[in-house]
């Protein structure tokens, strides 16, 4: 039988069993689409978790004071006022602490902010220009205040995106804090991070001005010191340097007695890595399971479709079809169903990837690998289980195949 006629016979076989062909195609379609969509959703979740972790900053250290113990009551971490501006300048020394890139002291309090349009109550932090680096932030518009502003107790401020929005304030506007006017120098870009505090709802002013007008307290004491290492790789040594330096300046011999705590955000990094690993494993198992389920669906519909045609195979043999003729016919049928099912499956997955985010807010990230793997596996399973039972039937004596139920 020539090739053209084999194709003709194959397609006629498919058209002759329309329902069966449609069901088989559907089996492959859903197998492929399910794999692509589940992997796509998993991929999107992984990306989003990783992006959120990265947004929190992974080369940052925070120094907080130790706890006060008064009358046996432990005030908790940060209640002591053991950190000073001397610590800040010590840590800023690039000879003693070469792996520390930036140091920012922070004091903070609540402030009631009033603009010409609105009013808003929020956290007001006093710091230095290093604040931007040590918080891994960037400016949305305008600029951060300068060291000159810090030295001269300038009444300038930088607003978080949410705060600026609530106040209806822009760069150059005047906003009063507890009645004292400040000029808005800049507005921070949205942090994107979803930490326990909203990084977009705050105001930052020069630390000197804050101590004068907002937080009060000694001009020498700071509540927190933010450090950033020169890179993610040097965070370990930056930690060591800061620890040694502060122990020395605070005259503490045993590290257990330290009156400060250094929190490394790199613990965040290792968390991030383990989260990523877990998500990758999760993703791979979801993909493997959906591939397995899809593959079994394809296998079933193919097996049923071909096994149900044993008599037809017997008849065709009796009428003079050679095993080769039959193999080619079923190969073409299986290949066509697998191909059509695979292509429609990819189409359905693309459609779903477009629809799902619109109706559920779940995002779907499509990458080529799962599409290729899903189509290859579904088509491969379709081919194997479309041809293998046909090959078995083609080897039967025609008379046995004819008698099959």
């Amino acid at each position, binding site marked *: 039988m020539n090739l053209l006629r084999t194709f003709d016979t194959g397609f006629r076989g498919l058209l002759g069993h329309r329902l069966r062909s449609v069901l088989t195609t559907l089996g492959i379609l859903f197998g492929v689409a399910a794999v692509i969509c589940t992997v796509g959703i998993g991929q999107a979740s992984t990306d989003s978790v990783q992006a959120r972790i990265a947004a929190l900053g992974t080369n940052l250290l925070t120094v907080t004071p130790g706890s006060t113990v008064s009358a046996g009551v432990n005030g908790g971490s940060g209640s002591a006022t053991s950190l000073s501006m001397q610590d800040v300048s010590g840590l800023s020394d690039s000879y003693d602490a070469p792996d520390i890139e930036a140091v920012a002291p922070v004091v903070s309090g609540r402030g009631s902010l009033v603009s010409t349009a609105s009013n808003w109550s929020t956290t007001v932090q006093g710091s230095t220009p290093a604040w931007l680096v040590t918080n891994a932030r960037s400016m949305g518009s305008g600029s951060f205040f300068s060291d000159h502003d810090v030295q001269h107790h300038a009444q300038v401020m930088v607003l978080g995106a949410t705060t600026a929005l609530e106040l209806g304030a822009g760069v150059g506007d005047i906003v009063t804090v507890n009645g004292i006017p400040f000029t808005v120098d800049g507005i921070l870009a949205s942090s994107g991070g979803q930490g326990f505090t909203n990084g977009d709802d705050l105001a930052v002013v020069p630390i000197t001005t804050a101590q004068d007008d907002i937080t009060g307290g000694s001009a020498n004491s700071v509540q927190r010191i933010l450090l950033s290492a020169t890179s993610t790789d040097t965070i370990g040594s930056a930690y060591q340097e800061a620890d040694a330096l502060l122990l020395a300046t605070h005259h503490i011999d045993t590290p257990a007695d330290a009156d400060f705590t250094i929190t490394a955000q790199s613990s965040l990094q290792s968390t991030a890595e383990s989260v990523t690993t877990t998500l990758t494993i999760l993703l791979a198992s979801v993909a493997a399971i959906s591939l397995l389920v899809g593959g079994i669906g394809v296998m079933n519909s193919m097996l049923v479709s071909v096994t149900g045609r044993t008599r037809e195979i017997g*008849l065709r043999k009796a009428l003079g079809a050679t095993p080769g003729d039959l193999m080619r016919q079923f190969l073409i049928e299986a290949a066509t169903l697998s191909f059509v099912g695979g292509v429609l499956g990819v189409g359905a997955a693309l459609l779903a990837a477009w629809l799902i985010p619109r109706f559920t807010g779940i995002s779907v990230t499509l990458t080529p690998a799962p599409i290729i793997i899903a189509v290859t596996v579904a088509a491969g399973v379709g081919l194997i289980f479309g041809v293998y039972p046909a090959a078995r039937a083609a080897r039967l004596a025609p008379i046995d195949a004819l008698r099959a139920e």
Partner: protein
Amino acid sequence: MTAEIITLRKVSKVYGSGESAVRALDSVSLSVRERDFVAVMGPSGSGKSTLMHILGCLDVPSSGDYFFAGEDVAQMGETELARIRNRRIGFVFQQFHLLPSMSAWRNVELPLLYRSTTGRRERALRALDEVGLANRVDHRPNQLSGGQQQRVAIARALVTEPTLILADEPTGNLDSQSSKDVLALLRSLNEAGHTVVLITHDAGVASVAGRVVEMSDGTLRERAAA
């Protein structure tokens, strides 16, 4: 003197081996000549189905010689047997064995797909005309009566212009009127020059044949013409 189409010489067929071996055919010899109409008669279990499989090149003998139109069939491989079945033999089965998804003429066309032939539709339509179904060519098998289905099957057997028409209980699933029609059709095909071998357990059916041979317990016996 007409040519000998079928020559069986001491053909045996044994199924299984050892203790459980069943000798379905025991040293059967038979010759069928061109334009013969032979009925093979016998009760079920007599070996007539086995004989039909061997005559139809659907199976090969365990021992003995089988020449079909001069070709040594007993020695043939699967592909060669497929070619003989396709070119030389037209089958008519008790169960009709029409493909339900195809129209009458597509069913008739089937054997022509396995050889290089042009004008397949014309040949299929001509064969359907010969069996009196020219007005049913586009009907599906389930739109036809049993008798009509069997006539489609006969047209499928005819379409290849075979050397031999082999009918296995062709009336087994038909009512008496349809049976008469089908037998009359086989009879007229024989008169038109076709060689027909008819396999049946029914003496009434066998009586349409010019020659009757009887199978019993794997052996074959010629019955004197009535």
